[in-house]
């Protein structure tokens, strides 16, 4: 059973400019006796998320709405357990599968076969698990003989088909996505659509960031509208999307 509880979660993003990031400015600060200490820590903090309170229970499909820079990606990273909030508590129970960048770990110089193992291992699959699913992945990606060729020789579509085929063999508990994945040409798209829908259905919790009204209303049961890092509205998908899209 997956479960997510956010208790007044806040994330500040330190921005290190060229000066803040170099050690010398730290040393100089001391050497100049604090005369330049208008900004003592020497870096700007961007308040990315502020005072988020919500609970997501097993079975919920949550859409994240908000303009660029509203904090959707940061929130997805907190949910991935990548960013640890400075304020509040984020309790995330369940195995995370992130389909935010399905090409992560794919090495263009390596063959399709090698990349299935690379990508699969990063998704948390063991070697025997990948071996067992290998034929199915190759069949789904429709790469045929190309599976033994370096990925740099692939077309963009082939590359995405491979990344998609591997990334969707996992059994997610908490599934995180940034927009719906759509890959390949007409015929592949239908197949991919069906597979992704099945994957989403099998997840215990889905959190998806999107700018698409259709997607939010079709896939999600609930939506959270972020603005300037704060929750502006949290409610049923139809109510929030009606308010957001106007």
């Amino acid at each position, binding site marked *: 059973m997956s479960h997510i509880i956010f208790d007044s979660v806040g994330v500040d993003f330190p921005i290190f400019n060229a000066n803040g990031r170099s050690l010398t400015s730290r040393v100089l600060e001391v050497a100049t006796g604090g005369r330049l200490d208008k900004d003592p820590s020497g870096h700007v903090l961007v308040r990315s998320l502020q005072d988020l309170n919500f609970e997501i229970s097993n079975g919920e499909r949550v859409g994240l709405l908000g303009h660029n820079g509203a904090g959707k990606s940061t929130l997805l990273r907190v949910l991935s357990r*990548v960013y*640890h909030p400075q304020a509040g508590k984020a309790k995330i129970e369940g195995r995370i599968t992130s389909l935010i960048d399905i090409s992560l770990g794919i090495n263009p110089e390596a063959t399709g076969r090698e990349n299935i193992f*690379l990508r699969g291992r990063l998704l948390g699959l063991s070697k025997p698990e990948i071996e067992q699913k290998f034929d199915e992945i190759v069949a789904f990606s429709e790469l045929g003989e190309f599976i033994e060729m370096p990925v740099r020789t692939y077309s963009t579509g082939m590359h995405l088909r491979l990344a998609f085929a591997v990334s969707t063999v996992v059994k997610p508990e908490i599934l995180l996505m940034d927009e719906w994945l759509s890959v390949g040409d007409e015929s592949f798209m239908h197949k991919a659509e069906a597979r992704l829908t099945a994957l989403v259905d099998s997840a215990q919790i889905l959190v998806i960031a999107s700018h698409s009204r259709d997607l939010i209303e079709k896939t999600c049961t609930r939506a959270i509208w972020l603005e300037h890092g704060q929750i502006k509205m949290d409610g049923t998908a139809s109510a929030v999307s009606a308010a957001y899209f106007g």
Partner: protein
Amino acid sequence: MSSVIQVQRAASLSRMLAWEDVKQAYRRSAIGPFWITASMGVQIATMSVVFGIIFKTPLFDYLPFLATSIILWGFISSTVVEGCMAFINAEAMIKQLDLSFFVHTFRVVIKNFITLGHNFILIPLVMLVMLHPVGWQAILFIPGLVVVLANLSWMVVILGMISARFRDVPQTIQAAMTIIYFITPVMWQPSLVPAGASHWLLGLNPFYHLLQLLRLPFLSGVPTLENWLLSLGFAIAGWLVTIVTFNKFGKRIAFWV
């Protein structure tokens, strides 16, 4: 998931990534990773001729020393230098996956260990060609290696963290390792240091002790108690500092890279 399984996962993942790093550098080349061995072999051969003439040492004495020193020093030095980039280079992974941070640091150590394995072949070869006897004490290389790995592992963690936060550190460390290369007896024999200066030049240099642990077993010598104790102490002190620092700042790494 139990922590034992997590550690196992992290270890096997970092092993795979390390092999991938080694292969990556030599893809599309005909002899592949054996370029590592080949270029090291040529370097040793050239240097031993030049320095053998300069230092007026007979080759059968100097070559085994130089070969072991350069190979083992190269392992220590490149692990430290590459360790600075452990987290910086893993940015994409760190920002998307909740992996143990040790995946990224072990990856660097293992990658360099694999490189060492390729170079290591040259050591018995040189010993054979120079008819240099290698005695039972060669077995001491193994505990020495364990101590050196324990030291390199903490260095990679802490340097990786500091480098992610302060981007001048990788360059600084690289420059520092070049200097340490010259003040540590890698090319020149420790016996050349006058007795009065040896405490300052060698005794206080932890890298000297680490290098002695690795190479003396092949040079018909035995590492001294001082070598062992200082290296062990360095490992323990280093890990203590690293653990404290990691507990304090580990959660910030994702924001720094």
